[in-house]
């Protein structure tokens, strides 16, 4: 029992650290990719190729003066970024980072918690995530922050429906809510993207909206809302909000890779590598490659597309994605009925 707790504790700490480091270097990657797409070089002064830039940014954030507006609700003002950060880190628990390692005859799964309702947990946590933004925006007692918070909450509520419906079609084909099992089912070439291309498209669009990334970054919207919900924030509390966004992006990429792109599975890998431990580690490596690819796509899209207008956003969510997701469910059902899977 004690051994089990230690193993889980170590795994939790590792996942926690990897998530934070990944989010940290996402900020660097974002600036670098933005630079390259705009024919610039991006940050390249702090360390070789600027790889110490996130450290420098972190030091800057900590050194900044801490400002809490007089008119704000102090408790909620501090609670906002904490909730945002907390919820974005919590989702890492259910992602299967690999199969399992065998050390001294014991099997150690590389998934912190294989909850049998993993997907529901995921949707639940992401919808709690909006409270961080809402509480922070409201507690600032500033009209721009409040507008940003309102936009964030309505946007997230609208796109959660599309996301949930697109996942339903996926659940119909996989027949399980456990993310660990969904990843295991995609062995070899049986990646879910091949069975659910439309579902994937809806899911990725909703993921963009859920993480408040461009072209759906209306809650921040510098040009009209100054900074949106984090207008009044400074120092590391602002850092937490920005960091939570990058953590969310990393987790979303991990979920996209796990649900639709085979997770830790890589075709033909088993033919070349036979040692199960090696295979598990390579699987983790390939999962991270997929995650990096999706993070790149997130940034690529951000630096390509302009921001949606608010009515366009609602139009797309309610009139575009939700009917499409329902259609996807119907098509999935019909195909499954014809092929005799129901």
């Amino acid at each position, binding site marked *: 029992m004690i051994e089990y707790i230690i193993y889980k504790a170590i795994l939790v700490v590792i996942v926690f650290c990897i998530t934070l480091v990944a989010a940290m270097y996402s900020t660097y990657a974002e600036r670098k*990719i933005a630079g*390259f*797409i*705009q*024919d*610039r*070089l991006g940050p390249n002064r702090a360390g070789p190729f600027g790889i110490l830039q996130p450290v420098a940014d972190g030091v800057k954030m900590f050194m900044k003066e801490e400002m809490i507006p007089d008119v704000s609700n102090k408790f909620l003002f501090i609670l906002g970024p904490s909730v945002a950060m907390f919820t974005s880190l919590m989702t890492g628990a259910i992602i299967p980072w690999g199969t399992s390692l065998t050390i001294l005859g014991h099997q150690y799964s590389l998934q912190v918690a294989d909850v049998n309702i993993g997907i529901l947990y995921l949707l639940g946590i992401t919808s709690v995530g909006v409270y961080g933004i809402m509480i922070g925006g409201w507690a600032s007692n500033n009209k721009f922050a409040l507008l940003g918070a309102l936009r964030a909450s309505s946007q997230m509520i609208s796109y959660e429906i599309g996301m949930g419906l697109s996942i339903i079609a996926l659940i119909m084909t996989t027949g399980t809510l456990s993310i660990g099992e969904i990843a295991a089912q995609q062995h070899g070439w049986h990646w879910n993207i091949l069975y659910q291309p439309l579902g994937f498209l809806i899911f990725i669009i909703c993921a963009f909206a859920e993480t408040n990334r461009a072209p759906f970054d209306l809650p921040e919207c510098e040009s009209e809302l100054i900074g949106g919900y984090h207008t009044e924030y400074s120092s590391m509390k602002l850092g937490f909000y920005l960091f939570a966004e990058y953590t969310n992006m990393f987790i979303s990429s991990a979920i996209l890779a796990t649900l639709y792109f085979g997770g830790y599975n890589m075709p033909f890998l088993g033919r070349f590598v036979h040692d199960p431990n090696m295979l598990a580690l390579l699987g983790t490596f390939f999962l991270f490659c997929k995650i990096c690819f999706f993070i790149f796509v997130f940034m*690529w*899209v951000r*630096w*390509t*597309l302009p921001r949606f207008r608010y009515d366009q956003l609602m139009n797309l969510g309610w009139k575009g994605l939700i009917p499409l997701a329902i259609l996807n469910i119907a098509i999935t059902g019909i195909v499954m009925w014809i092929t005799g899977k129901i």
Partner: protein
Amino acid sequence: MERIYLPAIFGGMIITLGHFFKKKVTFQYPEVKRPFAPVYRGMHVLKRDENGAERCTACGLCAVACPAEAITMVAAERKPGEEKLYREEKYASTYEINMLRCIFCGDCEDACPKESIFLTDRLVPSDSLRQRFVYGKDLLVEPMEASKRVDISQRQTKEVLEFKKRKELQHNRLK
């Protein structure tokens, strides 16, 4: 088809990906400096001849040509024994250019019959006092040492030299 945006979005993403791999235009400034255009007109220099004597004879043509009236000078007569310092019998004892008035048009350079004043690729540094922008001979005349001479070969092109020989132009006739 246009209503679903996706083809247009992918088109846009291909374009940005193309830019991702393009050669960058950035100059790493303190280490690498962007080369000036050969015709760049920056801070002036008063040239010396090959023996190190000042070429300027204080004729005042540059001051007349100057549209911004930035140039002032006081002429003086060369004393015996100063032949090493001044090429002509008359020279400028003070020669001042107000860099805040100067518009760097290069008319002084065209007007000069003695090939004395040239605009170079050097920049006039910023300052916090107006007075310091009035540059005297200490800043304008090039140093005596051969190694510290200011290179004006980019400005003194063949065309310029040919132009100066055209005697039908009045200012070229003045000696």
